């Protein structure tokens, strides 16, 4: 994955925040996606203002104790979002 690309949430997905986790609902296909706390943190930053690298950096700053795992987690999460069609990369 190119870390310079900026992930942007697809607007069709409806987001419901439940105790720091998220349930996504895609009305066209009736698809649901569950985002745990880590994925929810990534999702909230997919507004097109940050590149993937900047999202990693922001989370590493917020959670320095988990800095090593964060890069892998963020990339995996973004790839999963992309696979499910809920973000586009610009």
């Amino acid at each position, binding site marked *: 994955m190119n870390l310079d690309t900026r992930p942007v949430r697809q607007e069709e997905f*409806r987001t*419901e925040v*439940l105790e720091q*986790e998220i*349930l996504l*609902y895609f*009305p066209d296909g*009736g698809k*649901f996606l*569950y985002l745990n706390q880590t994925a929810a943190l990534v999702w909230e930053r997919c507004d097109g203002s940050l590149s993937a690298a900047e999202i990693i950096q922001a989370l590493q700053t917020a959670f320095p104790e988990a800095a090593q795992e964060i890069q892998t987690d963020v990339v995996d999460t973004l790839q999963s979002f992309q696979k499910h069609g809920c973000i586009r990369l610009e």
Partner: protein
Amino acid sequence: MKRNLHFAGRAVGLRVTGPASCALVDFMFGHMPAQGRARPHVFLTLKDAPDDGSAETEICLTLPGDSQVLRGPASQVVLRLLTEVDYHLADRCRAGLYLHAASLVRDGQVLLMPAPSGSGKSTLTYWLTRNGFHYLSDESSFIPLGGQACSGFTRPTHLKKGSLALFPNLEDQPHQEVRWADNSLFGWLIGTAALNPLPGSAALPIRQIVFPHYQSGGRLETERLSPARAAFELAGFLTNARNLPEHGFPEILRLARSLPAWRLGYGDFAQLEEFIRSF
């Protein structure tokens, strides 16, 4: 005999001719409400086949909308009959959540157990009925829009061949064999009379949602699910999502927010005794 089967705000009509067909329908659906406000939107026909000298009377099951006829002894027709009735009740259900879930009752409150086919849901359901729970359904449960009460499609519970040995004296219970087309045994349907059923068909409040996972030799594992996870899991067992506003999304969220949900892993019924006490 004419009989309408009412559940989840829908009805399926049965037109039944002959003693073997009538006996099968009585066994299968005798505990279901025959009265209700909905008019049947489909009809299934069962009739005894002409006597051709077979040891067992064969039954002809005609499916709705076409002339397709399934013919065979009760043991080979019964599962298709059950599947068709369940499918048609769910197919146009718009009044609430039609869930692929077992439901049982204790102390007037419902334990709702969504789980996939073949996961041991019916076996667990039967075991719970022998351990203090009343039976609503082993397969399909209904929660009306905006409500938190649950009712069940009360039908015989289906124990697969591998589960029969778990329960001693099962042959003493009312049952109907289920056989494949080659006549090999698939399982037994245990009659509702043996399942500690509740009288009537009232909807009762849900106390807990439990997603059971059986694994042979597995340990007891209980995990409280977050509302988001519970909602996601519940959505996977919603069989009439396409009929509901926003595919049932607001309703599933409402339930997940208001009801405790658990994942229950187990490898043996003895492990569940503590879980039962805590319900």
